[in-house]
């Protein structure tokens, strides 16, 4: 069993079979995190480099735990974003990395396409942990694993993704992955936060929260970044929350057994009301647990290389 490519750069070109393989493998990995000794020797002697040019504690920690539970040597290589200029310094970084002979490089970068450059230049397997606003495939995979776990299937489910879609790589990867798996995706948000022609990706677009979450099996709320307010994308946080926040009142339009998701970190009271975030329909914490399992699955499937 193998993935069709040496890297995971995004979900846009990943097939249904490959996604199923990753999810099935991740499921088997979940059990390891419940053992007393949370370690298996599978990637012993393999080197995993976490190259986080755009800082992140949560995703980086998740990858670090995943690698260590597989007995890999995980090295965190973080650089301040200001020292990277377009593609040139990335190439130098790539050559430096190559001389360390890593097996897998996990990269998060503020420039879309940075993982793709590394994938071309290096023999190592590259995992995209988020490139600009482009893709964040491991998040989408853990989201789908979480949904499949709770609902027993993916095909035919209706998912609503609400928030600042245009700046969200999480939304993009989920759109690619979920449409591939036969789910129907409804996008909700203010018009200035939804890219034009998004319907071309096979989703429906709604500017009212009610329309997006109508009869949804899954509602995924995205984090509103306060910096966007400074750049006048919306007048005020309170106004955004008034129209697009998921609260006890608005959630009623979705199905009774709806599950609530959020990639984190949540802004309580902004895109999601605290009682919903902590309520019985919320699977936000399960998403985090599944994140480690999905990343272990990817390191397992991609690591090892060819000999």
């Amino acid at each position, binding site marked *: *069993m*193998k993935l069709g490519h040496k890297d995971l750069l995004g979900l846009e070109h990943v097939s249904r079979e490959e996604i199923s393989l990753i999810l*099935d*493998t991740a*499921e*088997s*990995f979940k*059990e*390891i995190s419940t*053992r*007393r*000794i949370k*370690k*298996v*020797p*599978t990637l012993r002697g393999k080197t995993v480099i976490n190259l986080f040019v755009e800082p992140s504690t949560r995703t980086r920690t998740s990858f670090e735990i995943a690698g260590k539970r*597989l007995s890999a040597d995980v090295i965190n290589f973080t650089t301040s974003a200001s020292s990277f200029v377009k593609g040139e310094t990335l190439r130098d970084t790539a050559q430096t990395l190559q001389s360390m002979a890593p097996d897998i490089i996990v990269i998060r970068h503020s420039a879309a396409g940075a993982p793709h450059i590394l994938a071309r230049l290096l023999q190592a397997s590259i995992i995209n942990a988020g490139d600009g606003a482009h893709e964040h495939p491991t998040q989408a995979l853990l989201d789908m694993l979480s949904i499949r776990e709770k609902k027993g299937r993916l095909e035919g489910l209706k998912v609503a993704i609400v928030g600042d879609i245009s700046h969200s790589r999480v939304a993009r990867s989920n759109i690619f992955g979920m449409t591939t798996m036969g789910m129907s995706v409804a996008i909700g948000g203010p018009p200035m936060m939804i890219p034009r022609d998004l319907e071309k990706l096979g989703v429906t677009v709604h500017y009212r929260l009610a329309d997006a979450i109508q009869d949804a099996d899954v509602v995924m709320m995205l984090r509103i970044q306060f910096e966007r307010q400074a750049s006048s994308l919306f007048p005020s946080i309170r106004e955004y929350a008034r129209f697009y926040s998921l609260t006890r009142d608005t959630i009623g339009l979705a199905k009774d057994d709806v599950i609530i998701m959020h990639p984190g970190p949540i802004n309580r009271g902004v895109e999601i009301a605290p009682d919903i975030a902590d309520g019985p329909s919320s699977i936000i914490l399960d998403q985090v647990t599944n994140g480690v399992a999905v990343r272990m699955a990817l390191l*397992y*499937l991609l690591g*090892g290389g*060819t*000999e």
Partner: protein
Amino acid sequence: MGKELTVVMDAQGIERCIERIAYEIRENNEGAQDLVIIGIRAGGILLADRLSTMLRDIEGTEIPTGVLDITLYRDDLLSGTGKPKLGKTEIPFSLDGKIVVLVDDVIFTGRTIRAAMDALIDFGRPKRIQLAVLIDRGHRELPISPDYVGKSLPSSLWEKVVVELSPSPGNDRIIIEN
């Protein structure tokens, strides 16, 4: 050149082996106190179930039974481009202080058992580990030997020994493919 199939044991023979092994386990351990049975995925699962049922009928107590997937402990993972399909390990009980009877259908090089023991030690500290197999086909590459054997079947390296067990025991058989 087609495959030559020889049936070396039929359903009845298999049933008798399992029964004898169950009695041997019981005798060796003076009962079923602290006994647990772990079947190695995939060939040992049904066998472990059958043994567990048989021991339960003989002893009158339920024996905790689990499934161990050894894929992550294999010593041949790093070669080749594909990865074997990972299955689930289900051991919902503690192994500390227990007598673990590892069960597999065929023992060959012994590497699977080596991997299984490494996995078990990561789970806890069994009092003892014993090994039950239906077929010992020889060609060991590691110093590992089973405590309970259904049948010793010396084989050639180019032969394939296949144990076919199904949930309905009437169709069981053991064959050698050439």
